């Protein structure tokens, strides 16, 4: 199911804010699948994603008055979802200490493009999704924010609580982790040179 268009969303939001229950239903039906998918990518289990989706919409219902209508509703909704999921991951004590330490060691070498090409060629979307769940919380969240929610580097920095300058580092490291998960600890995955 695709998200509703901008105009109808704006109208639905306005009506929902005025207390129209049907409008709220429209918003929920329009965005719940996308938010569920977002949570599914970001959180470890399906049950977590289901619970989080419901919680996000409960939060949304309570805080709809805070939405600035001059900005994109879906972007705002994804921010709410991202905050919620990131909060869950941190509350679950999924430690980022190791990830943080490792960020310093981002390789600046030139990986073998042909091996990377081969890897991309061989792997399916399904395999990528499975590999995604093997990543650390920060790496997974960074990739989801960037490639699912299409967030800018500024937004990702804000969301993950890192300086804007390190978003690229976090993303590159996440890609390395993903390659490792897809193919094991090869030289390519570690960012080694040919």
């Amino acid at each position, binding site marked *: 199911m695709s998200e509703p268009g901008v105009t109808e969303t704006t109208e639905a939001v306005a009506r929902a804010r005025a207390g129209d229950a049907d409008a709220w239903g429209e918003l929920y039906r329009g965005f719940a699948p996308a938010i569920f998918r977002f949570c599914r*990518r970001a959180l470890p289990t399906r049950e977590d994603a289901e*619970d989080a989706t419901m919680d996000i919409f409960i939060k949304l219902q309570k805080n709809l008055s805070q939405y600035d209508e001059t900005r994109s509703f879906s972007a705002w909704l994804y921010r709410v979802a991202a905050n919620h999921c990131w909060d869950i991951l941190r509350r679950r004590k999924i430690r980022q200490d190791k990830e943080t330490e490792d*960020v310093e060691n981002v390789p*600046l070498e030139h990986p073998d493009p042909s091996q990377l090409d081969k890897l991309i060629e061989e792997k399916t979307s399904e395999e990528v999704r499975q590999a995604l769940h093997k990543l650390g919380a920060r790496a997974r969240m960074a990739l989801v924010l960037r490639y699912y929610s299409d967030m800018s580097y500024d937004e990702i920095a804000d969301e993950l609580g890192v300086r804007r300058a390190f978003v690229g580092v976090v993303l590159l490291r996440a890609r390395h982790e993903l390659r490792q998960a897809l193919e094991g600890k090869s030289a390519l995955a570690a960012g080694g040179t040919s």
Partner: protein
Amino acid sequence: MSEPANPVSQDGPGGTMDHLDEMTCLLYAERQLDRARAQAVSAHTQDCAACRTLLRALDRESRLLTRAMLEEDEPLPSRLAEFRERARQSFGWIWGVVFGLAATGVYALYTTFVEPAQVRLEAAGFGGTSLLSLLLFQGAFWKGWNSVITLLEVLAMLTVAGFGVAVFRRRLRRGSALAVVLAGLCAALALPAPAAATVFHKGETYELAKDETVKSDIFVTGARARIDGTVDGDLFFFGQSIDISGHIKGDAIIFAQSVRVNGQIDGNIRSFSNNLTITGTVVKNVLTVNEVVNLDSAGKVGGSFTAFAQSIGIDGRLGRDLLTMAGETIISGTIEGEVRAVGRNMSIGSSAQIAGPIHYEGDNPASVASGAKLATPVEYTKRERRSEYRQGHYYVWRVIWTAAFVLFGLVLFLLLPKFAAETVSAGERFGAPVGLGVLVFFGVPIAAVIACVTVVGIPLGVLTLGLWLLALFCAEIVVGTVVGNWILGKPADTWGLIGRMAAGFVIVRIVYTPLANLHVIGALVGLGIWMWGIGSIALALYNRLQPTASQAAMPGPLPPVSLPPHTTVGGIQPA
């Protein structure tokens, strides 16, 4: 060849040449480089096939990631298909029933148990204007609650500690908050005695000689103690045996194997011991949990005598009522008040004089000697030992209690909606709450008892035990809510959660009621429910102590790395 943005020396087939590093390529592909650097990269890739290929590979990787993420591989689960808001309305009539039953239950509880008990206790010298004041300020275990001051001090300190944790928790790493709280509790236990100069004595034996006077409370631990002198305050004793031949002007609170009172105690005796013998005088009341209790013919108790024991002998004089729950109650002395006894046997000797009514519930009728002077005949009730689940009122009470618990849960959920949701969420994780539940279920009472060993720790220990009991009462409510969530799905709001709590609690009760009467299984299931529930509460509390989601709570900042400034120029060049 153009100057790359971040050149990396690399041995190629043609010797050493510079390539772009992967970071630069990624930032270029994502249009995050400034114009100058982007132009440099662009120029470099026109000459360098390897870097051009890498750029394209990174771009393809981005597209693969986007595709993998956006693909609609799973439909929206059916329980999320509609936003659940209807629960609130559908539970309206149920709430009416629940309130009605709960009100009936509360009224029945009050008239059946609380009011008679209050009247009885007042008659027995524990008088008070209300049950609350009775429990709080005329509590059975120590005089006038002088140590309420200590309790207030401890509470104040804990409040300050809690405030400190709340303020600084964002700066504290995981586990540190808990450590701070535990350290605070330890500090509370380790505090020196309050300004009231209590005398402490620890050793094998203690003896207060006849001409000696302690002008304060005295706290004694040891194997044996002998008090021949005067204590101008309360006496606390933890040990093996104590002999009081002197004069205690306050209360005597005693945990010992053997207690003998030959002297005078102006206050009350509160005793947990194996044997208690009173040959002297107790001006106020006696409350005791013993194996054998004996008020000797020379002994006098000015107030009431409340005893839970295997065998009780009253040969002396009692100023007010006798309340007993004992295997054997033998009365040969004088009782100015009434007698209420529950037990196996009761015998009233020929020298007995009892001024008040005598109520006795036991296995066998009371044996009354011919010379006994009784104001009224013994009112005997045979004790029924039928299995309670075979009695109709058992089920009526189960329903009433269920309603009362649901009402209790409702109040709790409305008072603490967020914490309730967190507790239920913690309960849905099985392993952690059950494991923690085992620890809390057994560990907290032990810790509370240990805390009570010190005078300073008594209020803290009692408080801890009270909170533990409260958590125990809440445990079944938590488990009921988790079950309700399983059946009805995730709630939309607090009322939804309350609805699930009510439904789940009723289901747990229905399932548990028949199981409860199967001895071992019933006990195990009951324990399981308690541990699961109490563990969920503990886990939610623990989670509360964790740092909240904020940037300041991130586990250490990322190290500075030199990166290009950020603009949105760059991007993959056409092939």
